């Protein structure tokens, strides 16, 4: 049996798992969008965050969700994913995450790291942060330009080093969003990051959503895409922990070669999120449409919503797309990632068929 046949068996199993999860979802990642304020303003930001956009529910509201989750769901399986905006701008940050830690929740954070001084790194240790992903989007000038903060690169790099110096965090990851203009910096950026004592590097392509929709010339071309995946695969062949993100079915050649798992969009079956307005939804990157809001923590109990609603996420995305239904890869792709789907026109915005396979 060759590798492709073996992969097909894995993917077939994955599809069976998908059906089971639609019936019996398994919450693994619970996102708290603490704030939409950010001290940067990335041109590719999927949620169009910027300075002064305001914070999420107050600390007590989030704490109530934690108590509910601990009481009614298998909380030991759940990782809290703290995100924003820049989550460190949330005024109740340490109070909330210290509380989560004391309750036994594992938590990690996505951050731009510009605010992680030595004191903040210690605070993150004290509040039990286990994992962290820091955005570095290119070499110094590119990073600063794309993220809208002069000096942001140097601050972020210092923030990463402050985290490393604590020697306690279980996984420090750098995430880079690759676009048509910064893809030429991949090799040089790798040389820089390889000198740092980080655990992994996640390299993802820019997605056509949020603010990035305003910059179509920054989207990756088919040649860029292939170059990106070949770069990641080559690094992984040398046991260098570079990963592509969770998005998109990549075809038999690249599936499981550029990340540690086979494609599965877990929005609504593995993943739930609380938006800054208290809305309960699945993946924060999915377009914010009324039909995707399953409740609100001000009026609903999160565990009830998770267990009894979410039906919109628990069916094949391909059921909305005629083109997907006719595709020979549908049983493994199931319509692809929910965050990149065009719900107005019922088609997938990002499909690698005829690019990678």
């Amino acid at each position, binding site marked *: 049996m060759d590798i492709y046949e073996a992969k097909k068996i*894995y993917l077939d199993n994955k599809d069976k798992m998908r059906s089971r999860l639609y019936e019996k979802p398994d919450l693994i990642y619970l996102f708290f969008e603490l704030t939409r304020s950010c001290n940067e303003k990335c041109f590719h930001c999927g949620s169009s965050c910027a300075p002064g956009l305001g914070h999420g529910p107050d600390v007590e509201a989030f704490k109530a969700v934690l108590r509910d989750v601990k009481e009614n769901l298998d909380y030991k399986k759940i990782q809290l994913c703290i995100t924003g905006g820049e989550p460190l701008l949330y005024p109740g940050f340490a109070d909330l995450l*210290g509380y989560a830690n004391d309750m036994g929740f594992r938590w990690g954070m996505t951050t731009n790291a510009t605010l992680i001084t030595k004191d903040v790194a210690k605070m993150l240790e004290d509040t039990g942060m286990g994992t962290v992903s820091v955005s570095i989007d290119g070499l110094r000038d590119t990073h600063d330009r794309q993220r809208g903060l002069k000096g942001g690169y140097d601050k972020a790099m210092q923030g990463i080093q402050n985290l490393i110096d604590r020697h306690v965090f279980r996984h420090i990851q750098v995430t880079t969003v690759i676009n048509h203009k910064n893809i030429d910096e991949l090799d040089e950026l790798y040389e820089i990051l390889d000198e740092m004592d980080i655990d992994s590097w996640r390299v993802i392509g820019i997605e056509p959503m949020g603010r990035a929709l305003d910059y179509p010339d920054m989207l990756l071309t088919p040649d860029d895409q292939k170059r990106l995946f070949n770069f990641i695969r080559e690094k992984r062949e040398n*046991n260098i922990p570079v990963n592509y993100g969770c998005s998109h079915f990549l075809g038999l050649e690249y599936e499981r070669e550029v990340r540690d798992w086979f494609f599965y969009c877990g929005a609504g079956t593995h993943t739930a999120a609380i938006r800054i307005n208290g809305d309960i939804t699945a993946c924060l990157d999915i377009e914010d449409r009324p039909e995707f809001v399953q409740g609100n923590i001000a009026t609903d109990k999160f565990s009830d919503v998770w267990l009894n609603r979410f039906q919109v996420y628990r069916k094949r995305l391909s059921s909305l797309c005629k083109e997907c239904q006719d595709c020979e890869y549908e049983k493994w792709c199931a319509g692809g990632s929910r965050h990149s789907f065009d719900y107005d026109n019922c088609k997938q915005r990002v499909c690698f068929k005829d690019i990678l396979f």
Partner: protein
Amino acid sequence: MKRSKKPLTFAAIAATIGALSLAVEGCVYGPPPETNVYGPPPDYTRNEETEETLASKPSKIHNDNEVCVYGPAPDPTVDGPEVDVYGPAPDPTADGRENNVYGPAPDPTIDGPEVDVYGPAPDVG
């Protein structure tokens, strides 16, 4: 960057234990456990900790929720209106030209046209 102690590609694993074995494993045990997604990296280590271990590690932070305690103090010279993050609702008109949000007014001799600061890199080709 740390080096993985295990093969990272399916092809490399297959070269070690054989594609057939992989497929059998796939049949019997299902796909490997999922790792992350798009947020912070998955945290497996703490799954192995006991409740007793967790209970012995209380947070050292308790209700210490004063604004700016955990971030650096706002530096109006460098950060400009970031202090407004904690204050009143944002002024939508102020968000329009972000170039001036952070720090001093752009120096056209250094930065070029303002539009280049936040958008794509200037296309000098």
